[in-house]
């Protein structure tokens, strides 16, 4: 029996039980939709992170206080820091290495920024003049922290776009006084818009001289030091210099950790992949349930159509003809579910990104192929048993079946 005819017969049977066929596909619809959704979120995250790191420049290194065995980004560890990272450490790195072109000491804290009656809770970053060079940022109005601002511990602040709008509206903030964590600062500049990166909103930040920040937060050590290496294609000389210089200053102990951007990217990628596989595993369970649903309904269908199978066999249908007929039917049901799930998943993924731009999604060809493959596979795998039952029916018994 020709394939086209088989497809027609199967389609007819699916149409004859529209509601039942639809309910049967539901499991696969949900399964495939969740596969599409979850994997597209994973893929989107991966792409997003790659872009973020590319935007930061590939020659960035970070020094965190404390020694970690595992490489990777994230928070500094809860370890016994013998020596904190100090401003002097940063200056030493700046002066003693030819493989380093920029060094920015960083103190990160949280605080309230106020101007008259308006206020905003934000991130306060203590740093120095090299920060914008190291992090590829630029100033929109006024100027960034100057070298002498740090030397003289001037109480000046550079604010991000969001804060400028929030506190000053359309007014120019330059030269205006603001309060940062209860202390008075003068606004010396406004950053050009940059947007978010790795969960940090660069537009929603206040930059003040690093030593002023240490005073403000009552801290002795730096949160980290950002370093720009001279040679983006080979970071090793810069890393070796950092380790050598800091060890010398820290009584020959390596109580700090140097992390390159590549390390961080790799860590994030690992997290993203792990997430993707875990989510994929969860989605597979719903596909499994969907498949069992199909098998169940196909078994019912075979039973209901026992007579029809008997008639077809009496008229000359071979075992293979019946097997293929029912297999095609289950594959069609599951593919239908796959197609609906594909549409649904893509729709949800797109609307999530439209509603919440922070959650990027990306639908790639391999996701689509995975979904199609999954649904056809489910149809075949769970269709074989019912189809075999049908094909193995004894025509005499089947014809007598009431």
């Amino acid at each position, binding site marked *: *029996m*020709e394939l086209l*005819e088989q497809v027609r017969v199967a389609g*007819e*049977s699916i149409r*004859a039980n529209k509601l039942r066929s639809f309910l049967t596909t539901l499991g696969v619809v949900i399964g495939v939709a969740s596969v599409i959704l979850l994997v597209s979120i994973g893929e989107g995250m991966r792409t997003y992170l790659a872009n973020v790191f590319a935007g930061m420049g590939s020659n960035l290194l970070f020094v965190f206080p404390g020694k970690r065995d595992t490489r990777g980004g994230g928070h500094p560890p809860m370890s016994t820091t013998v020596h904190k990272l100090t401003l002097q450490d940063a200056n030493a790195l700046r002066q003693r290495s030819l493989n380093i072109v920029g060094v920015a000491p960083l103190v990160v804290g949280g605080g309230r920024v106020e101007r008259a009656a308006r206020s905003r809770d934000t991130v306060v970053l203590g740093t120095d003049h090299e920060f914008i060079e190291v992090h590829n940022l630029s100033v929109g109005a006024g100027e960034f922290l100057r070298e002498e601002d740090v030397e003289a511990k001037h109480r000046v602040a550079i604010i991000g776009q969001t804060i400028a709008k929030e506190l000053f509206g359309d007014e120019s903030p330059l030269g205006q006084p603001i309060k940062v964590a209860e202390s008075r600062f003068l606004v010396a500049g406004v950053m050009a818009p940059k947007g978010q990166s790795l969960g940090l909103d660069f537009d929603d930040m206040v930059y003040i001289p690093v030593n002023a920040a240490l005073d403000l937060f009552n801290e002795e050590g730096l949160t980290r030091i950002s370093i720009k290496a001279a040679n983006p294609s080979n970071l090793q000389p810069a890393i070796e210099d950092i380790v050598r210089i800091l060890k010398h200053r820290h009584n020959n102990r390596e109580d700090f950790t140097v992390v390159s951007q590549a390390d961080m990217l790799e860590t994030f990628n690992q997290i993203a992949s792990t997430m993707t596989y875990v989510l994929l595993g969860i989605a597979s369970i719903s596909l499994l349930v969907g498949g069992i649903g199909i098998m169940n309904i196909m078994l019912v269908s075979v039973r209901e159509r026992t*007579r*029809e199978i*008997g*008639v*077809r*066999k*009496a*008229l*000359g*249908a*071979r*075992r*293979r*003809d019946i097997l293929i007929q029912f297999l095609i039917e289950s594959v069609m049901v599951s593919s239908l579910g796959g197609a609906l799930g594909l549409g649904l998943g893509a729709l949800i993924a797109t609307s999530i990104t439209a509603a919440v731009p922070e959650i990027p999604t990306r639908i790639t060809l391999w996701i689509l192929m995975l979904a199609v493959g999954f649904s056809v596979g489910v149809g075949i795998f769970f269709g074989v048993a019912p189809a075999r039952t049908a094909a193995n029916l004894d*025509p*005499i018994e089947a*014809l007598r079946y009431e």
Partner: protein
Amino acid sequence: MLIEIEKLSKVYRMGENEVHALREVSLAIDRGASVAIVGPSGSGKSTLMNIIGCLDTPSGGSYRLDGKLVSSMNDDALATVRNRQIGFVFQTFNLLPRQSALENVALPLLYAGVSRRERREMALEALRKVDLVERAGHKPAELSGGQRQRVAIARALVNRPSILLADEPTGNLDQKVGREIIALFRRLNEQENVTLILVTHDREIAQSARRQIEIIDGAIVSDRGN
């Protein structure tokens, strides 16, 4: 000789007991013959019909159809023989309810690998033989009992089989319609030269065939008109 049956037996196992449905039955039927197989229920006539119709295989003995030894064929080969050589007519018609009369008639051609266009032509030709061309597009539910049985006969004829095998073909019809169906069988047997085998318990219908074979308890007890 179209059908040559020699010492055919069929034994069913029912738990510990063996049931002999057929006991060394021998029988020969000519091409173009018209034969009625009669007997009470449980006599083995259905078993004989199933074996002749290649739906079942015997436990012993041999069955040659058109010179070929059918009794030792596998399931797929038997399916092909059914498709090419046998036309079944059932008591309950056994039409597929969702398909039109034409599609029902064309069903055996589907498994014979006939092209779509030819299927349509051959099915219309078969419907013409039973005077139902004008109902080709109707579903079985839209047809009367007699019309349904005529569609079933057209389906049995469509692949030009050598044997028309009818199992109680008038059992679900009233007497008048039943006579019309029997008349149709006689006409097809004479005009199309198709071998007719009627299985029935009705003596009057059996008399419409030229030869009557009576089976009781798995054995032929009389064979008249041959």
